[in-house]
């Protein structure tokens, strides 16, 4: 039922999702989903609230396993390897995540960024990597003099970039962003979108958003989901200009959702 124009045959796929089903208890939230997430590109997941896009995103780093009474079927391959065969701790180090609301730890700015490095037993110079991560998250200039201050002293947008820096510090191959800008103002949102553009050199990203302008601006590929089904997936420019499915067209033109 889905009309997927195979995105960029020439491109490598970082994640391959095959026939994925997900259940909260008896209730199925994701239905037979197939999707390829290309390396060093941004893939946006759009769809109305409750369509299962966040749930789907959270299966990619097995975060849903922390919720009781859930079940996943199907296959997710990271660089050709099944993520269910990997050690979950190692998987999450390789597939980082940024959440809807900024969620820094109740620690200093420095310790927030260093946290992932410390638990993963990083032996090099922490200072360098903390600085590098904050630079990659475009936050260094704003916080370099306040590294010992509590992360909660930062504004919401700064906190979200701190969370991105924290995720980047462990150098993940994939970064999952779950509506990272929904709590932020337009200026800060623009900063984060710009940041995503620069991160493409080193990182594969999947972003859930219900802001269609954001998907159109910031992503290379877009997948449209509805009621747990993947309806359409193609290059962003194509999906927003010439959608093939009438439901996609209805959604992007604002007729529902």
């Amino acid at each position, binding site marked *: 039922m889905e009309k997927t124009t195979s995105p960029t045959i020439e491109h490598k796929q970082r994640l391959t999702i095959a026939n994925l089903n997900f259940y909260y208890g008896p209730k199925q939230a994701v239905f037979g989903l197939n999707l390829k997430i290309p390396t060093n590109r941004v893939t946006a997941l759009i769809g109305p609230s409750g369509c299962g896009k966040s749930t789907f995103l959270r299966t990619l780093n097995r975060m849903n396993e*922390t919720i009781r009474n859930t079940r996943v079927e199907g296959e997710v391959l990271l660089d050709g390897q099944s993520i269910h065969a990997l050690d979950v701790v190692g998987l999450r180090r390789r597939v980082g995540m940024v959440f809807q609301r900024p969620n820094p730890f109740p620690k200093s700015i420095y310790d927030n960024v260093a946290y992932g490095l410390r638990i993963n037993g990083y032996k090099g110079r922490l200072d360098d990597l903390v600085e590098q991560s904050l630079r990659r998250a475009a936050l260094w200039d704003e916080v370099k003099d306040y590294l010992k201050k509590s992360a909660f002293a930062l504004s919401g947008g700064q906190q979200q970039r701190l969370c991105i820096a924290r995720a980047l510090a462990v150098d993940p191959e994939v970064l999952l962003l779950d509506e990272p800008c929904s709590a932020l103002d337009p200026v800060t949102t623009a900063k984060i979108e710009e940041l995503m553009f620069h991160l493409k050199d080193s990182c594969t990203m999947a972003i859930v958003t219900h802001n269609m302008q954001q998907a159109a601006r910031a992503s290379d590929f877009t997948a449209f989901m509805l009621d747990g089904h993947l309806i359409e997936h193609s290059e962003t420019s194509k999906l927003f200009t010439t959608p093939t499915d009438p439901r996609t067209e209805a959604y992007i033109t604002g007729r529902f959702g």
Partner: protein
Amino acid sequence: MSAAATTIAHEVPPQAGPRAFLHRLRRGDEIAHLITLTFAAAILLITSLLVYELWINSHLSRTHFGWAFFWTKVWDPNFDNFGAAPFIYGTLVTSVLALLLAVPLGLASAIFLSELAPRNVSDTISFLIDLLASVPSVIYGLLGIFIVVPLMRTTFGPLLIHTVGNLPYVGALFRGPNYGVGFLTAGIVLAIMVVPFIISVSREVLLTVPREQREAAMALGATRWESTWQVVVPWARTGIMGSVFLALARALGETMAVTMVIGNAAVINTSLLAPGDTIASTIANQFTEATGDLYLSALIELGLVLFLITFILNGLARILIVATERGGGRPA
């Protein structure tokens, strides 16, 4: 009054005078303000009265012994010679012992109940724990007399004397005659009494830690334990410390259960196995048989000293909380 008139009345700025006051009264603001203010003031008043009474009634003892009351090691009703040192020592030692035993136990239980146990198991156990918190202290005293005291006398006491008792320095804490009653026994009974408070409050606080905090840690490759210990517990630390101070307050003031198991001896002894006494226990034991004005006055001054200790420790607790919040504080 018509609807139109009501509308106009709202547009007119509030007038001074009894009518305006009555109007405000009707809205309830003024009443709520008054009632809450009265009750809040009552707390202050009760505390001041308490201190005032203790201060006035301990006059004789205060003028007779002066500051030396704090460090005099003798408590001798026969010769009217009174000093608080043995009881201050006993109070602090038993409370510290209680916390040393109860905090790890309570915190571990709270973590298990909030983070690991299935929800229905957690709720059931928590219900039982809340029940434990409301058991009268005399019952804990009986538990101490019939279980802890014999165990200390026959098993743990000798065990401690023959093992750690032989070590340098710390060995001094576990030497001498072992009657079963004493500081350590009182500390153990107190620990059993305060642990439900620590578990109950800490669990509630841990349950309020946002999901996103746990997930943020796990998304970085933290194990469940790392996320619990390094992120969830620090987030909840203010509340956990609150539970510990609640437990400390209860341990400092506990009377009945301590009296039953501490041995009631007004001496300072290095050995934790030796009998001693606490301030609250002494007051309860001796108040009814205090003959002579100075004796009675000295007991009341003991009460004043206990109040002072509680006050100082609570102050230190505040400072500690503020200090740990620095550099990693979270929004209140």
